[in-house]
């Protein structure tokens, strides 16, 4: 088995760490990571739980392929009830921390309760101890990581922590590991902060034992790696240009939400694109991009490492920001840039550094700033309230707000609540570009219709990583569909949702799916794990996970009414590009989607569906 068969339960109220056996019946039905941890969560936590209360739990979970030789096998997920949405939250991260946890001998850690004072968990293989973290509270993730390595005299310690945003209750606070990899969305970092849990420092030297058939596994992973290497997207496109290559693709396609989704194309897109990151700067002749970087065991290496121009206003006299660090991915570049009409690449890179340094989601942050800028231009918010003039396009306002939000100061406290609460407070709830309280990412559903259904039905609030139909609708992977058509999208979204649930539960990166399908994943799981991991069963496992999450949300009070989109997308037509004149055609897709899912008209799984999936 590629599972370690062992979970750690940490009761923060009592200050105890207890080892438990992994429930193998559940593992065979829910695979691992997202699926298996969510199963534990829904069994143990009431759907009505207040997300920031001690009764909520926070689970860090690996998958069976985490820490193995499978390409991209370094992933972990954080599962909880999200404070931004009130829905199930599940945020996935790469880097090295997940593999380290697995190699320390654990499949997952369940945190419950709340510590009376700040603590961190130190794991050295089997030995788990809670330590006082009073001296770390108030520190950034960039300060916390070296401080813990120094304290434990262990340069190999891998650390997952929150920055000040998580401590200050930013509702979209992230959990950061390896300095710039993030369990980014839905506010999992705020839950960690509410538990007075600053960090988890792990050292694992045990490896991942018990692969079911090591020879077959070597063969299966080697074959799958060849598929990634031979594929032009995963073998060349992603390593060279990263996800940021989409900036010009989506803009040319007329599907880029711009200036709080008032427009659908951004004339500054070229200035903040992958191509711009590669081009030598006029100021110092150096490119923003320094190199690419891989997460544990990844043979794609899409990560961006950037350096900010030392003469840029954001970092003048701030040498702590002159070094190379995590650069812009497409979603961050869009949210910090296009969503606010800002085309200053260095300013976006700086704001992104702050998101990593103090742990908050650049998508929700950037999209909330977009709403603030619209309210400012309407005269609803003033310079006096904000502390700065904040018209669309102001890089200065963007970076100023990033600093305030990171530190929990001034108007940053309101931005930290997300756009749903902020726009409601100022009387314009329709200006919040959210679904279930979470800001939608970098694809406009008026220009990519499948993404409208994706956002509306995503179990963790608006998100692209639950069903990336952009692959099909824009890029033609695995087959090309028309982005402006609503026909056929219900089935497409369902297929993407179910398959993605499997990738997220296996311990591998969803970006492999640009080259792999479940046909490539199945042999790796079959060789590694006991149980039935045939293609047919994997499809059922994915569907089971999706429905389990949905049932939790329904029990938490969500209804079909919440499967909607911001009014702007449904009523204000795209002004330019191929989608000119179109709104998001959600009502044409949603009933068909419910029916394909085996749900009633209220969006509840029918008794037959529940039984078929063994829920």
């Amino acid at each position, binding site marked *: 088995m590629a599972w370690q068969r062992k979970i750690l339960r940490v009761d923060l109220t009592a200050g105890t760490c207890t080892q438990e056996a992994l429930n193998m019946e559940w593992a065979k039905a829910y695979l691992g990571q997202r699926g298996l941890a969510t199963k534990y969560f829904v069994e143990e936590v009431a759907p009505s739980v207040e997300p920031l209360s001690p009764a909520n739990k926070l689970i860090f979970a690996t998958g069976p392929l985490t820490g193995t030789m499978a390409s991209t096998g370094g992933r972990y997920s954080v599962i909880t009830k999200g404070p931004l949405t009130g829905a199930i939250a599940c945020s996935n991260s790469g880097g090295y921390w997940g593999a380290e946890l697995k190699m320390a001998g654990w499949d997952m850690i369940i945190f419950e309760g709340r510590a009376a004072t700040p603590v961190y968990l130190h794991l050295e293989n089997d030995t788990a101890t809670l330590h006082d973290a009073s001296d770390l509270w108030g520190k950034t993730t960039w300060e916390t990581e070296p401080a813990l390595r120094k304290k434990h005299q262990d340069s190999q310690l891998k650390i997952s922590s929150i920055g000040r945003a998580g401590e200050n209750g930013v509702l979209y606070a992230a959990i950061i590991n390896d300095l710039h990899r993030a369990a980014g969305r839905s506010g999992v970092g705020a839950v960690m902060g509410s538990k007075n849990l600053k960090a988890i420092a792990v050292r694992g030297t045990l490896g991942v034992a018990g692969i079911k058939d090591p020879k077959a596994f070597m063969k299966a992973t080697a074959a799958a790696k060849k598929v990634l290497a031979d594929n032009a*997207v995963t073998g060349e496109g*992603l390593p060279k240009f990263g996800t*940021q*290559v989409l900036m010009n*693709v989506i803009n*040319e396609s007329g599907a880029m939400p711009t200036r709080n989704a008032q427009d659908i194309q951004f004339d500054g897109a070229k200035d903040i694109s992958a191509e711009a990151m590669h081009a030598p700067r006029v100021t110092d002749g150096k490119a923003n991009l320094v190199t690419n970087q891989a997460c544990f065991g990844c043979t794609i290496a899409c990560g961006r490492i950037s350096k900010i121009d030392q003469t840029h206003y954001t970092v003048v006299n701030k040498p702590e920001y002159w070094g190379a660090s995590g650069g812009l991915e497409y979603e961050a570049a869009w949210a910090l840039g296009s969503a606010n009409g800002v085309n200053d690449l260095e300013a976006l890179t700086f704001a992104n550094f702050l998101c990593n340094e103090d742990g908050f989601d650049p998508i929700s942050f950037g999209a909330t700033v977009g709403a603030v800028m619209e309210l400012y231009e309407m005269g609803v918010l003033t310079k006096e309230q904000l502390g700065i003039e904040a018209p669309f396009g102001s890089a200065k306002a963007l970076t100023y707000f990033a600093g305030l939000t990171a530190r929990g100061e001034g108007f940053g406290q309101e931005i930290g609540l997300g756009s749903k609460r902020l726009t409601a407070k100022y009387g314009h709830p329709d200006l919040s570009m959210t679904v279930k309280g979470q800001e939608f990412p970098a694809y406009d559903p008026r220009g990519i219709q499948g993404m409208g259904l994706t956002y509306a039905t995503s179990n963790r609030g608006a998100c692209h990583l639950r069903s990336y139909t952009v692959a099909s609708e824009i*890029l033609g992977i695995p087959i090309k569909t028309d982005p402006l058509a609503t026909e056929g999208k219900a089935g497409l979204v369902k297929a993407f949702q179910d398959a993605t649930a499997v990738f997220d539960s296996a311990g591998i990166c969803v970006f492999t799916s640009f080259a792999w399908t479940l046909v490539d994943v199945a042999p790796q799981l079959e060789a590694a794990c006991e149980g039935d991991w045939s293609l047919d069963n994997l499809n059922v496992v994915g569907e089971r996970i999706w429905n389990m999450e949905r049932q939790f949300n329904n029990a938490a009070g969500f209804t079909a009414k919440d499967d909607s989109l911001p009014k702007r997308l449904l009523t204000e037509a795209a002004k330019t590009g191929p989608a000119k004149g179109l709104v998001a055609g959600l009502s044409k897709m949603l009933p068909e989607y419910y029916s394909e899912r085996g749900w009633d008209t209220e969006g509840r799984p029918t008794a037959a569906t529940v039984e078929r999936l063994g829920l």
Partner: protein
Amino acid sequence: MAEASIRVTLKLYASLGKYLPEANRRSNQIALEVPATSVMTDLIAPFAVPPAACFLVLVNGVFLPPGQRPTAVFADGDVVAIWPPVAGG
């Protein structure tokens, strides 16, 4: 009678940008005046872009399917944007 010509903007992105003349690389685009009968391969031929490297082709933002690329002609003012195999998320 001289063959009718049209103006087309050719955009070459990601690793295809290197095929553009030096002065056009930062903007990733070049304005062309070409015979009205030109198809995609005619647009890229002067820049020695390998046709096999053209993965995603958008004409005014609309996907041009591979099957239509050898025959589809353009209208005056069209914007033709081309990428090698790319994806993101």
